[in-house]
């Protein structure tokens, strides 16, 4: 099933012409990459058993299809149902069973490791950190890179300060000698400052090239794409004050870090216990329960399964902070309903939907999953109240206005951030129905909402002229 060249194909664009997708000329050797294609071959944690294809002129194929059909009728393959716990203190849902964690992550990318950036990988990182596994962790590389960067920044601030002092001295001397201030070239570029400007970027690049050279001389492989940022952005200098502040804060942090490391060494031989659980968002949990039927959510205190009909109100009340009381009425526009409607919609179209908090949006949409490609779309949710009910009284009109209004600067802020990370911004309006009485039919409830997406991007007149 696995393809030998899957890893190299992984570098090409999703929409690349198949003819051109062939392996690129080999780069520097890199550690083998997990075969994501194999690991994540199932898009959802649900089993699908395809019927063998029926070829009309081949009676055997019909027979085999019929056989498989019958065999499934007689003994039905069982669908694994995983367990999760609702934690009322944090209004969140946890999965602790190792097998369930793997299944939910690998098939559809549900949840995130409580101690990791996304995939639960704390245990592996910890083992590497303690030297139980070979190789360097990417976290370590990041830390080293940051330290280098900081040192270079300090150096730059220092050299700039020197430059200013130098110039001040020169100017003072010139004033004393009675001549006019050091004359200024009429030319626009400031050759002096340009030449003497200390570029962190260039220094980083130089350093990187150097280390690369060294490593390749030693015959060891170069770690994966740790390239320094190359850019044409203008260089910007922070004041030395800021730099010093940063420096002191890190040095104290480092001190604390080293003392912690010492403590760790005492029990290094202890058997590592996985401290991490999978945290799934409330929307993910409800989708797994209601949509796919592959999850049971337990009440942590009573250790009983929460039935779907109770789970929905529970999550809806918990979408407020602090959670609404059990007796209180449910609002048709509570944050859970809005975000669940959107979550379900995009999941049902085949997108892998994950939280967009890191980029300040509600969701990110991945094609196939985060290990395969960047999220192309970032999504923000805004409720809409077109139903006449919402404009019947003054009070409601005010409420609705406050709920719908977002400022322009906020929108531009979000849009700018998405442009920085090369994502397309989608504004997803959710039409909110008027309140209805309690209903057991979830589909009927969901069917009252409606989703409409707008794609928003900066328009630059100069670029669309031709």
């Amino acid at each position, binding site marked *: 099933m696995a393809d030998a060249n899957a890893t190299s194909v992984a570098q090409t664009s999703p929409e690349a012409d198949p003819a051109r997708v062939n392996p690129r000329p080999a780069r520097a050797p890199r550690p083998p990459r997990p075969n994501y294609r194999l690991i994540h071959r199932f898009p959802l944690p649900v089993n699908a058993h395809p019927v063998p294809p029926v070829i009309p002129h081949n009676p055997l194929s019909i027979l085999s299809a019929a056989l498989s059909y019958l065999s499934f009728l007689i003994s039905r393959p069982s*669908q694994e149902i995983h367990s999760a716990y609702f934690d009322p203190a944090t209004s969140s849902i946890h999965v602790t069973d190792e097998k369930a964690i793997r299944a939910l992550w690998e098939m559809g990318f549900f949840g995130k490791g409580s101690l990791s950036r996304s995939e639960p990988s704390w245990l592996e990182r910890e083992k590497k950190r303690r030297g139980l596994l070979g190789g360097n962790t990417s976290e370590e590389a990041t830390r080293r890179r940051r330290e280098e960067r900081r040192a270079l920044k300090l150096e730059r601030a220092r050299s700039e300060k020197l430059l200013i002092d130098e110039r001040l001295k020169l100017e003072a001397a010139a004033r004393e000698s009675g001549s006019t201030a050091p004359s200024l070239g009429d030319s626009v570029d400031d050759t002096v400052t340009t030449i003497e400007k200390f570029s962190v970027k260039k220094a980083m690049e130089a350093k990187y090239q150097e280390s690369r050279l060294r490593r390749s001389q030693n015959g060891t492989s170069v770690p994966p794409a740790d390239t320094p940022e190359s*850019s044409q952005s203008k260089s910007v200098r922070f004041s030395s004050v800021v730099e010093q502040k940063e420096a002191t804060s890190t040095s104290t942090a480092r001190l604390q870090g080293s003392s912690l490391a010492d403590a760790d060494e005492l029990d290094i031989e202890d058997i590592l216990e996985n401290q991490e659980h999978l945290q799934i968002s409330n929307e993910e949990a409800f989708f797994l329960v*209601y949509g796919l039927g592959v999850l049971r959510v337990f009440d942590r205190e009573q250790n009983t399964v929460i039935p779907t009909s109770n789970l929905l109100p529970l999550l809806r009340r918990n979408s407020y902070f602090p959670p609404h009381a059990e007796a209180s009425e449910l609002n048709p526009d509570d944050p859970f309903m809005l975000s669940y409607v959107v979550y379900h919609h995009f999941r049902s179209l085949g997108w892998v939907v994950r939280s967009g908090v890191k980029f300040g949006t509600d969701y990110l949409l991945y094609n196939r999953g985060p290990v395969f490609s960047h999220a192309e779309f970032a999504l923000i949710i805004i409720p809409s109240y077109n139903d006449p009910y919402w404009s019947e009284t003054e009070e409601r009109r005010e409420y609705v206005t406050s709920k719908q209004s977002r400022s322009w600067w906020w929108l531009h802020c979000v849009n700018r951030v998405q442009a920085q990370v090369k994502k397309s911004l989608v504004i997803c309006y959710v039409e909110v129905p008027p309140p209805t009485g309690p209903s057991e039919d979830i589909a009927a409830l969901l069917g009252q909402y*409606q989703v409409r997406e707008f794609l928003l*991007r900066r328009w630059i007149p100069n670029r669309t002229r031709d």
Partner: protein
Amino acid sequence: MEDKDEDAVRGTSVEPTQVETDLSDETQDFRLLSHLNLYARNAAHPLQANANTQSPPSSLTDTSSPGLPKRGEKDFEPNPTQHQADVLSKSREAMHDALAHPRLHNLNTRVIAYYAPDGPAPPPGIDIEDPARFGDKGVGANVHPDSCVYVPNPKGQYFKNMGQSDRWNRVWLLPEEALFLIERGSLDIRWPIEMTAAPEDEGPEELSIPMSLQAAYACFMGRSGLTMERYTVYTGLKRTGYALTRAPGWDDSAQVEGLKDQNQECASQRPLKRGAGLAGILEQLFSWAQDPFSTRSTAAGPVVGCGMHRNYNNIYRQLAVIPWYDPSLAIDRDPLDTTPPFRVVFHAYRPSTPIKKSAWPAPDFRIAVVNTRETAAIPTLAQLGALLESTPLDPPSGEKMKRLVYMRLRHGYRNVVMAVVDQGIVSYLRIADAAFGKEKLYETQAASMGNKRNGNFRGKKR
């Protein structure tokens, strides 16, 4: 696992992405302009030419004017050096000089126009016996009633896509057109002779008083719906080479009579909601045949049932329970059936689009203009939806869009450009009806998974 999105950030956050880089985003150093200045103190470079004659038509399509520099160097912190102070004062001097540059008119090429405070009217001394015969105000039906400046002797390139001629071959200009031309130094507008009370013995050209830029703003701005925001957008795009006309929605107070009720009726009939319908029922029937023991229940879940599934496409189809808006089914809305300012006020044409003033072609871009100080909140769905529905259906087309799902989504089914103006600074947003619901992503995924023999699959890292 590596977090791809974080990596993307690491690579890009320091540099503004290409899309973001826009020279006009920031104040640039005017010293880069000093060679263009007639009155510059130290004019090292020759003056290019007279303001009037310097722009040949070919340069309309070329914004990268020869003198335009790359972005200049700037400091991050003020410091006490004389050097820094000197550079700053040089920059300010250069700015002063550039802004003090006069608007001059070469006698051979100058175009004189007259302000007509009362709008279009026949030339003085000509009596129209039967004004009604000639339509509005007797100057000809072509002339826009909001026009307020006329050019008796129109010559030069500017009137190719600006103004309208009357029966006496005078070109009448709308306030924004007149203001734009006077501002760029291409039009010498005069106060009406009657208004400044001149004696009879002199010719009109000698005795009429030239209008100042300030006077032009005072007289034209605010006239017939011309707000500063609209004007800022108009000139900004004109400078870039676009041609612009007022759209039917220009007048904020214009409403569609009797359309409201009719529309609501329409809305209820419109099959815009897509979700479980007849197709859904068929779907269920189909899935039942696939799996007769289905425990599928949309009321209490699980939506896809606990049973066994034949393929993922089927699972996804069953999951589709959320209604979504289908822009391709929406009925076109009257441009006036929208809420100002979320209404198209300009039609814009690329420089390359051939233009006939008598019959403007379909616009390349439709532009709505919003003043953030007046309309602080972004549009609601009702407002934005109406705006999009008032533009024509423009579905993704072409070979590339057919192939690329992201491109189709980004293009959308209808689109509009919203110019958001904050105190003279314009940010343009292109807004499109995306219709994710029309793209069953799972189908392309399944196809790519099935296509594994040659090891190619789509959906890879960009």
